[in-house]
Each structure stands twice: as structure tokens, then as C-alpha cells.
């Protein structure tokens, strides 16, 4: 398998990038095609389109992509530091493979909007939270959003519903599915402005990749034809063909060492056989995700940084945000067949900012989906939402209707940053490499729960307007696991209360960069990957410019 050029561990390369996901893949491509020598360390395998299957048991239940306890990577969870954390199969969900979670994500690809960057100063501080403005604005990031649109590949329909954009989408919107039509008709009837969901899935050939074949296995699966715009499909091949990038798979990073001048000097890792190596680099870019990036900083403590590398602010691992979520499901007279094609085709953003008269902070969007992600097994497991038995002959008949005749309207919403929601190292539990296991401490802010319930109420009204025969509400509960891992090495101008600066450079270590979900200051409205990729393009741009000025 092509994994690019080969560099010696003793030779100092320009950059080591830890992680090849949404951010790491973009930065690897940008830096290597700009002529820099790059080593990418990825702890999982290099799976390609031809490796992926419609394998619900393997991916969704057996942990083939998202490792957990069974694979030797246990995690622990507690709601507050006063509780003892208990072991979980998976609490932070992320894929361990080249391309990271951009391989198995849904492809729902909303840009953040201007308000996401300065909402704290618009609304004022919220007591008990670390709600803050970003050091950058939407306008700063817009050129990079457009870069993502065109280089990574996004399908959508330009319109009044969009935040300001400098260029149209490269690919036309995906065809509407029945659940999308139900949402759009109901939304218009209620006076809202539904529109075609922007997705990181190609509706037509683009950049040498084919259009979607609508197989229905997006969310939790790898795309079998490279139509999903993962960094694995869109960026890694360009990095490898640059002749400047080496991709090292099955390499698990244990720590980053500093030189005598307190600059990042080498990255220490285990290979697949457990043999320890280290790679010298001029600078290090950590893109390991919102759980693994803070873990690596905490594991890389030293006499200079006793509380963790680049953690003089104490903010490493804090302000974890999951995004809120709610669902209401309806059963309809005719086939909806949500198991075909992409997860969602229509979205409503009329409640991007909920009016303050409701008495809580929040906002988000509603999209149309299948209640069980269109998955046969999960659908049968979940069956019984609308009443009826959960097993036996009658169940056999009901499960068919619930699979084919249902739609779900999901609310995706804000999470407030709280210093008490954290990624830390577990006191006792270790992973298969002997590293401290990830510990999650998380309790939704009451406003986040109120926001999720607000969206569920809107979803129920929309299902009624759409003509659902029966409606179910999935209970809104405090979250104990998620795939959105945001805010844990937040960006800011003030080194006292942020980990990286406005260009994703560590305040403490000048040749150390961090870029992934951990950089986000606010949570957005529930679809963070587009913003993570845009930040990655911006970070790479800055690194290239700073290198040219000999500032790295």
C-alpha cells in the first residue's frame, strides 16, 4: 500500500502531524504539497473504499472502527468530579483509521455562522460558564470554508439561507429523500425556510472522485466509492503523491518531548508490534481529536510543564462540549424508505438563535432522518417506539413498518462550555499500551437540555404538520457519550485562559500546534466537522507563511 516517501527517525523532518483525521489530513496535504517534509502518525489502519462493507454488526456493534474496551481502549465516565468514574465500552466515540472520524461521519456539513464567533459579546456572559468569543470572526474563516467546499468537496444549493459565502457550492444538492420532503412541506406550512442540507458527499463527480450511489451506509460506515469527502478520500492521496509525506499507520503516540530550549523536539510512539520509536521534527502539529489531543498534552508532562504540556493556562482538557441533540419520530401512511441514500437532505435553521424571551440560551437546526439511521439491525432493536410487542410474531410484522414507513426530525443544538466538563487521565485504568485511560466528566448545562427540548417540541409540531399517524419522543436526557469532542484545548488571545492562539499555535511552546475539535471556543449548532476542516486549512496557511518568515 502506498504510504508515501520514507524518512529516517533520526532525521529531523519539518513537521510531525499526530492524527490523520478531519484536521490532520488537511494539514498533511497542505504542508506536504507546499514542499515541507511531513510524517503523519496514525494509530489505526489505512482502510480504503474497497475495504468498506455494509457491515452493521462489525462497525456499529463490534467496534471495528470505533475502538473501545474490547479492543483494549477502555474509557471511564462520571457526571462530576465528586463521583467515582465507571468504566464504559465507549464514551468518546471516534474512528481509529486514516481519515479518522471524517471516514465514518454522516457528512452533514453546516458552516458555522457569524454569530457563532461573537455570541458571548452579543448576549453577554452566562454565569457559571466559560462562554466566550472566538479570537477570529466568520469573515476570517470564510475563505477557508470555501477552500473546504472546493478542495474537499461539498454538495448544496446556494441561497438566502446560507451564511455569507464567496463562492457557490462545487456540487449540486443531493436529491431529496421522502423524509426531507416531509420536513420541507411541513416547514413551509409552518412558515419556516427549509433548504437542501449541505453535505460533504459528492452528488456528482468532483476532483477525480465519483458521485454518490445512494447505498445508504454513511453514518458510522466508510464510503465504498469515495463519494464521502473524508480526509482519507480527498486529502491523504494528495499528501502521499506530493513526494514529501510519509504516512505511518498503527503508530500510537505516547508523548512529545522538549529540547533544552523548551521547544517540541521529538514525538515518541509505539509501532504495531509495541516497539518504541521517536521522530525528530522542527515542529509538531497535534490533530488527534478533542479527547486524544488533551490526553497527549497531559501525558507529556515534564518539569517545565508539570500539569501537562502547553498547559500553563490549566485549560487543557476543560470546556468539553458535545452538542445537544433531540429526536421525535413519526410513522406515515406511505413508504419513506429512509434506509436509501444519505442521512439527511433537508434542514431548517429558523431557530439558529432561540429568542431570549424563552429564558435560556441556545440555538440549532432541525434535519430529517431515519429514526434508526436507516440501519436494519438498529431499526429492529429500536422497534416498539409506537407501541406493540418487542418480540414474537406481532413484532415481526410491526418491525417492517417501523423500518420502511418512519421519519425522524432531529434537533442539533448548542452546548455551553463549562470548566467542569473535562477530558482527564483516569487515576487507575490503563489502555493496552499502558497509557492512562481517557476519563470523561460531563453534565449538560440546564440551558442545553432546555434547548434540546425546545427543538423536540418544534420537531413534534413539524411531524404533526407532515401528517404523521403516530409520534414518539425519544426522551431528552443528560448525555454520557458523544462523537463531537469539542473545546478541550480552546483557542484564544489570552494565554491565561486559552491553550492555542488565533492561529492554533500553542501559547506556551512556539513550535507546537494543535488543531481539531479541541480548538473550538463555542460548539456551533451541532455539525462541527466543516469548521474543523476550515480551521485546518487556516492553520496550515499560517504555518506555511510563518515558516517562510523563519518564525517556526
Amino acid at each position, binding site marked *: 500500500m502506498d504510504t508515501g516517501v520514507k524518512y529516517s527517525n533520526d532525521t529531523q523532518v519539518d513537521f510531525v502531524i499526530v492524527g490523520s483525521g478531519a484536521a490532520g489530513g488537511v494539514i498533511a496535504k497542505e504542508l506536504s504539497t507546499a514542499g515541507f517534509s511531513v510524517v503523519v502518525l496514525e494509530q489505526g489502519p489505512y482502510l480504503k473504499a474497497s475495504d468498506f*462493507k*455494509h457491515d*452493521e*454488526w*462489525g462497525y*456499529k*456493534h*463490534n467496534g471495528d472502527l*470505533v475502538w473501545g474496551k*474490547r479492543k483494549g481502549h477502555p474509557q471511564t465516565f462520571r457526571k462530576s468530579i465528586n463521583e467515582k468514574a465507571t468504566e464504559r*465500552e465507549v464514551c468518546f*466515540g471516534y474512528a481509529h483509521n486514516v481519515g479518522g*472520524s471524517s471516514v*465514518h*461521519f*454522516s457528512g*452533514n456539513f453546516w458552516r458555522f455562522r457569524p454569530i457563532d464567533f461573537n455570541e458571548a459579546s452579543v448576549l453577554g456572559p452566562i454565569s457559571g460558564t466559560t462562554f466566550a468569543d472566538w479570537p477570529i470572526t466568520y469573515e476570517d474563516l470564510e475563505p477557508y470554508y470555501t477552500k473546504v467546499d472546493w478542495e474537499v468537496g461539498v454538495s448544496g444549493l446556494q441561497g438566502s439561507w446560507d451564511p455569507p459565502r464567496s463562492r457557490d457550492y462545487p456540487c449540486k*444538492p443531493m*436529491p*431529496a*429523500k*421522502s*423524509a426531507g*420532503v416531509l420536513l420541507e*412541506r411541513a416547514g*413551509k406550512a409552518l412558515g419556516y425556510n*427549509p433548504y*437542501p442540507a449541505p453535505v460533504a458527499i459528492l452528488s456528482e463527480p468532483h476532483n477525480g472522485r465519483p458521485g454518490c*450511489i*445512494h*447505498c445508504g451506509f454513511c*453514518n*458510522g460506515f466508510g464510503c*465504498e466509492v469515495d463519494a464521502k469527502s473524508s480526509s482519507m478520500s480527498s486529502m491523504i492521496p494528495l499528501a502521499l503523491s506530493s513526494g514529501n509525506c510519509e504516512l505511518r499507520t498503527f503508530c500510537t503516540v505516547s508523548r512529545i518531548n522538549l529540547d533544552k530550549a523548551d521547544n517540541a523536539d521529538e514525538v515518541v510512539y509505539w509501532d504495531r508490534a509495541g516497539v518504541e520509536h521517536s521522530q525528530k521534527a522542527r515542529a509538531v502539529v497535534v490533530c488527534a481529536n478533542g479527547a486524544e489531543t488533551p490526553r497527549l498534552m497531559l501525558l507529556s508532562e515534564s518539569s517545565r510543564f508539570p500539569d501537562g504540556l502547553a498547559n500553563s493556562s490549566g485549560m487543557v482538557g476543560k470546556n468539553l462540549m458535545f452538542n445537544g*441533540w433531540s429526536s421525535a419520530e413519526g410513522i*406515515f401512511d*406511505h413508504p*419513506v424508505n429512509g434506509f*436509501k441514500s444519505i*442521512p439527511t437532505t433537508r434542514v431548517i435553521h429558523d431557530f439558529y438563535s432561540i429568542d431570549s424571551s424563552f429564558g435560556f440560551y441556545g440555538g440549532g437546526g432541525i434535519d430529517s432522518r431515519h429514526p434508526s*439511521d436507516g440501519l*436494519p*439491525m438498529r*431499526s*429492529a*432493536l429500536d422497534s416498539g417506539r409506537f407501541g406493540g410487542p*418487542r*418480540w*414474537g*410474531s406481532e*413484532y*415481526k410484522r410491526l*418491525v*417492517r413498518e417501523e*423500518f*420502511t414507513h418512519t421519519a425522524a426530525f432531529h434537533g442539533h443544538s448548542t452546548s455551553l462550555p463549562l470548566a467542569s466538563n473535562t477530558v482527564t487521565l483516569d487515576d487507575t485504568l490503563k489502555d493496552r499500551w499502558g497509557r492512562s485511560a481517557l476519563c470523561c466528566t460531563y453534565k449538560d448545562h440546564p440551558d442545553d437540555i432546555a434547548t434540546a427540548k425546545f427543538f423536540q417540541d418544534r420537531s413534534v409540531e413539524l411531524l404533526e404538520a407532515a401528517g404523521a399517524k403516530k409520534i414518539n419522543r425519544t426522551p431528552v436526557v443528560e*448525555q454520557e*457519550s*458523544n*462523537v463531537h469532542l469539542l473545546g478541550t484545548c480552546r483557542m484564544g488571545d489570552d494565554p491565561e485562559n486559552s491553550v492555542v492562539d488565533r492561529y492554533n499555535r500553542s501559547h506556551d511552546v512556539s513550535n507546537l500546534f494543535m488543531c481539531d475539535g479541541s480548538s473550538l471556543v463555542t460548539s456551533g449548532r451541532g455539525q462541527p466537522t466543516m469548521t474543523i476542516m476550515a480551521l485546518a486549512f487556516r492553520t496550515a496557511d499560517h504555518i506555511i507563511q510563518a515558516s517562510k518568515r523563519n518564525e517556526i
Partner: protein
Amino acid sequence: MNKVLSRRSFLRNSSEVFHKSCIVLTTPMILSACKEASKDYSDSPNFKILSVNEGKEYAAIASRIIPSDESPGANEAGVVFFMDNVLSDGRELEHNILKEGLKNLQAMGVENFGASGFYSLNTDQQDQLLEEIEGAEFFETMRYLTIAGMLSLPEYQGNRDNIGFKMLGYENRHAWASPYGYYDTGYPLLGDK
């Protein structure tokens, strides 16, 4: 993948739930010799980890969760072979919990119907026992494995002849084209006028 991965953990760590929920039947029942599980895949099985008796019992339980009626069920789909396959894949702990659960179920069979083999009870008796333990860990795990065995790819040893997919009205195609359902048929890009 959006949001929670699988909302169900494979198994809870304790079998306490089972004991709590296991209400012992007190009404005496007459044992029926009726044996519905005639088409029994476990008569001469080649299991990786299950004993022959376990295989018979799990197959009988799966057959009540997804019965063979006007259409084929768990028995024809070979669900017990899926169970054997996944339990042998580094799930010793879970397998032991299931063995304990089965013992309890068999004890209920003795107490109520005078027969220890769940497979030897008639379907009414079987259903009666399963209704008693619905919601308990053992039952929920059997339900989970039965459904997973119906709807996983046949390479995992269940879902023979795509019986599970047919039950759901699902076809495992590589590609679909619009229209996908009733409501999007003829639907214009910008919606209704």
C-alpha cells in the same frame, strides 16, 4: 456517525437485573410433550464455544423472539450460529453471564412445568417464561443477539438466505436511485410551487 453509537451496551456488567426481575411463577402448569422446535439446527452442530445443550436452548429462545410463522424466523436464519460465533470472539465474560441466565431460566422451567429443558416446553409455556424475564439482562441479551443474528451480514453465520433482511423489507443493494420512497416521487429541487 452522529450521536450515540449504539445505545445498548453489549451486556451490563452485573447479572443482578436478571435476579431482580425474575418473578417465580406459582401457578402449577401441566407439562406438555408438544415439541415445536422440530427443525433444530443444534442437533448435530459444530459450535465454536456453545455446548450442544446451550445451542438447543438458545435456538429455542431465539425461535420465540423471532418465530417461524407465515415467514421464516430465527431458526431458519441460523441465529444460534451467529451467537456461537460472536460469543467465541473474546466474549467469555458475556458468555458466562448468559450461562448463568440460562440456568435460572431452566430452574423456572422445572419449578413451573417440571421440565428443565426450555426447548422441551411447548410454545405457550416458553412464552410465559420469557414474558416473566422480559427486561432482565438475560432476556434482553438474547433479544439483542437474536435480532443481530437476523440482520447482520450472512458472513457472521446468521441471516441465512437474507431471511432477516426479507423480514424487514430490506434489500442489501449496492446502490439506489431516486425516487426512494412515496413522498419524494416527482419532487422538484426547490420544492412544491
